[in-house]
């Protein structure tokens, strides 16, 4: 596993500014530098540079095909409200930021984004996700509100950087990303299975958008 450089908030916030990011295995084996991880989120600093935003959902490979998150509901529990874990065709385990292993695909889908600017400013980019109101099998529908997600990442014990939530059938703001910061998480999706719906294959698309002013 490559060393991951991360900064833990360890009580003095200025450490974040000076310590390199994502300390991981590199320092775990040294006696000279031992940082005790606390239950805080990573802070991943992006080197200032030409103004850029970037967003990754799922696989970090060229090709232009979105990943798909899916579930086949067992007949015996259809519409019982027994939540059904969804899986995906994502194979993205490592962070594009530094190749550190953060996700466990296919159950987890990688989501990451950043805003880079020449200098760290008060600007921030807004990460949101938009869906239609429903998934459809061509005739019948399932509300997108039936799909929710949890958020985590390996080694990041703090609060989720891109929080857990539930699609709202429209636009949902997930978080703001400060300039020269990289934010990422792994989302695990669930189908609430609250309704006894018509047979079929229901599909829908979520579009994640990152906007900087």
């Amino acid at each position: 596993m490559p060393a991951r450089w991360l900064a833990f908030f360890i009580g003095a916030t200025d450490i974040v500014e000076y310590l390199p990011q994502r300390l991981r295995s590199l320092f775990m084996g040294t006696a000279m530098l031992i940082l005790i991880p606390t239950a805080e989120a990573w802070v991943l600093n992006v080197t200032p540079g030409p103004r850029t935003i970037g967003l990754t959902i799922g696989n970090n490979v060229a090709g232009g095909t979105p990943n798909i998150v899916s579930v086949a509901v067992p007949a015996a529990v259809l519409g019982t409200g027994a939540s059904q874990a969804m899986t995906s065709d994502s194979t993205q385990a490592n962070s594009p930021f530094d190749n550190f292993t953060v996700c466990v695909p296919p159950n987890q889908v990688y989501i990451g984004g950043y805003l880079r600017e020449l200098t760290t400013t008060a600007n921030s980019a807004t990460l949101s996700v938009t869906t239609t109101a429903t998934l459809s099998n061509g005739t019948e529908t399932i509300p997108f509100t039936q799909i929710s997600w949890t958020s985590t990442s390996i080694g990041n014990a703090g609060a989720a950087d891109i929080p857990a939530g539930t699609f709202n059938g429209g636009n949902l703001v997930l978080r703001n990303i400060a300039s020269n910061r990289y934010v990422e998480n792994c989302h695990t999706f669930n189908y609430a299975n609250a309704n006894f719906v018509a047979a079929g294959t229901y599909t829908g698309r979520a579009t994640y958008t990152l906007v900087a002013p």
Partner: protein
Amino acid sequence: MKTLNSMSKTALVAALVAASVPMLAQAESATVSAATGPLTTSARLDFRITVPKVLFLRVGTGGLYGAAANTTVDLIDFTVPAANLGDATAIAGTGGDLGAGAVTALLRSNAGNVTLTANTLGAIGNGAGDSIPWTQIAVASANLATPVFANTLPHSVALPATGASANFAPAAVSKVTNVGSQWTYSYLNAATVPAGTYGGVNTNNGRVTYTASVL
């Protein structure tokens, strides 16, 4: 292991970031740059929920939808008092999962219109050459208490003399059928018939088989 100081670690991070971030022009990963003005980028994620076809029928003893199959066949018994034989006094039954000749009737499907029929093999015999036609068995429908259903699956056809009845499943709504009723059987006792025990547990044509099907 070589120990890096803070500055060298910072430099390494900078190198990592500089090397990795500009390489993010990939599928469902997009990078946009501009010196000024708003920046917008998006990436997509598709969702698929596969829902199987299901068909569930319960008449009498059984579980709710999703429970293991229950093969119990209830027996509805009618005993005609001698004083009332053939006087057209309807005779209430005993038995059934709800007692007093009543049963739970549930039908559930998500695959479009269901066909539901009652099927018999002919008149109910006593094994001695005598018989009672199925038209003498009436079925009343009412709200179901457990699980709660309004009378949405009324037994709206008579039991057939033989063979299959007409379809009496209600039309599906958006391909979904989820209905229930209480069915209560009675013997109409319209004719004076020879003494004997007519029907029984799958004997002497004493069984009604309810069949549900969906395409």
